[in-house]
């Protein structure tokens, strides 16, 4: 009896969580000029419409590039920081940990504003640099978190053993520790990429008319249009994100990293 109740409860919960996505996906295939659910007839015309608009294509390219670069810069920083945080005891260690994880607690909109003010104070007006800087800060805590978790799960005697066998410290790290925390790093990079890709609040302050990210382009669009193009774009992004997650799961096993 209890088992069945639990099952029903879980199904309802899943439905509740997935409902918005399902509605978006279904309405993206609508043929009407206005987004509605359920659509009266189906077509792929809004996909065509979305893909034929240079604004979206350019913004998507920008977002993907930004997410990749921010992740690429943040990962080595996070890796080095995690090793220091997990392996060594030094004064200010807790403070550093809090500092690295702070963007998790501070609303992203505050981070965005803070970065805008700071960069302006230094006279840095280049949009690309601003965006990359901001996104590195925003994704860093997620990378530090996942990599730290992976590192703490590794027996420190493994690296010690490698050293007794003749490996220098860095060599031991490269051959023993790095392969073992790779799942954590890859998962962290995936989170980081997705997080950067759909960030609105920080980018809001830092973009301009010429350089835009996909979420902001969508935000601009929805101010004047309410056709299912956005639903179509959302569906495509969703498919990409899911695809990425499945790929990571296949390659490294997401459960091992997230569940750990």
């Amino acid at each position, binding site marked *: 009896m209890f088992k069945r109740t639990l099952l029903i409860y879980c199904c309802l919960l899943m439905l509740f969580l997935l409902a918005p996505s399902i509605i978006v996906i279904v309405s993206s295939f609508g043929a009407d000029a206005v987004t509605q659910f359920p659509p009266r007839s189906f077509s792929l015309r809004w996909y065509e419409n979305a893909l034929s608009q240079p604004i979206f294509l350019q913004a998507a390219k920008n977002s993907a590039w930004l997410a990749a670069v921010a992740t690429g810069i943040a990962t080595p920083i996070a890796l080095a920081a995690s090793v220091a945080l997990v392996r060594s005891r030094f004064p200010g260690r807790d403070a550093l940990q809090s500092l690295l994880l702070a963007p998790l607690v501070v609303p992203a909109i505050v981070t965005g504003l803070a970065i805008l003010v700071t960069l302006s104070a230094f006279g840095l007006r280049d949009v690309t640099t601003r965006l990359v800087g901001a996104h590195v800060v925003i994704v860093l805590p997620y990378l530090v978190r996942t990599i730290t978790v992976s590192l703490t799960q590794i027996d420190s*005697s*493994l690296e010690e*053993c490698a050293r*007794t066998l003749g490996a220098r410290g860095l060599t031991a790290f490269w*051959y*023993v520790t790095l392969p073992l925390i790779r799942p954590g790093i890859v998962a962290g990079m995936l989170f980081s990429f997705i997080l950067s890709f759909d960030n609105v609040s920080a980018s809001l302050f830092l973009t301009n008319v010429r350089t835009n990210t996909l979420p902001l382009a969508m935000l601009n669009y929805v101010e004047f249009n309410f056709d299912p193009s956005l639903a179509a774009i959302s569906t495509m992004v969703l498919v990409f994100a899911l695809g990425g997650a499945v790929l990571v799961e296949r390659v490294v096993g997401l459960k091992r990293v997230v569940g750990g």
Partner: protein
Amino acid sequence: MGSIKISGIGKRFGAVAAIDDVSLEIRAGEFLTLLGPSGCGKTTTLRAIAGLADVDIGRIEIGGKDVTDLPVHRRNIGMVFQNHALFPHMTVEQNVSFGLRMRSVPVKSQSERSRTALELVHLGGFGGRYPHQLSGGQQQRVALARALVIEPEVLLLDEPFGALDRKLRESMQFELRQLTRRLGVTSVFVTHDQEEAMVLSDRIAVMNGGRLEQLGSPAEIFERPSSRFVADFMGITNVLTGHVITVADGLVDLEVDGISYSARARSSMVVGQQCCMTIRSEKIRVSETAPPAGTFAVEGVIEHSIYLGTTSSYRVRLKLNQAVVLSAIEVNQADVANGSRLSSGSSVWLSWGREAIHVF
């Protein structure tokens, strides 16, 4: 194979001395065990030899060469860890050849030597497996092969069999002893299990509170413990504390709670000095009748009588001194089944010669 010379090493963690002025020489080809309770400094000493822990003061030499400031990877040591520390993402063969790879040994020679090492520990043909596909004993054997394949000057083992069950542990001990003898490798073994230390070692170094308590062969340690701590830790029975009444002609009289015992004196004994003694339980004779006059004997009552096959073990509470319980072991005669064995509650005489007592 190298000898090890440790001179006056010390290591503090904050206010606690993990190693306190330990000096120790381990001969080439010798099997030495560092024995003691947890926190006695045995593991820290081993890690200091390996270079995984640095010492505050003192000097460590391996094979006559000062290695005190030499980093771990240049010490040419083989180490086996308590949890085997096999690299989980590498196959057995990759694990074993790791040390050779780090030494840039040619690939062909790497695989040959790994195979030989695996055969040495009876795991030929397991090279392609992953550590998690092996049993606990097999994992520890791979770890042993991995440590030996690099032909280290010394082999260091940190409670390698701690996680194994008793039976497997005994067979691994036997195998390890044979292997190290055959290869003649200088070995330092850390354990808190005195039986394991007795089985394996040429010599045992008993440690306590960061200090070296006693160093000697298993027989020396067991028969002539130098302190109450060693006697208790080795599980030696019949340890009594008393003080010296008379010293004369190489003999000493000790008084323990009103009973006076005679024994061979240790060189530096003075009247009034407090000291300990042990009475070897297998050298105590148990009889129902009083022994002839002139023999030392005390009267007691059997509290427990345990039949152990070839021997019987008795625990006897002394009549004159109710606080003392001595344990005695007698070889069973053929007619035990007929009821000749002494039972609990019987009043008996315990007697022994002077050689049964060791004073320290």
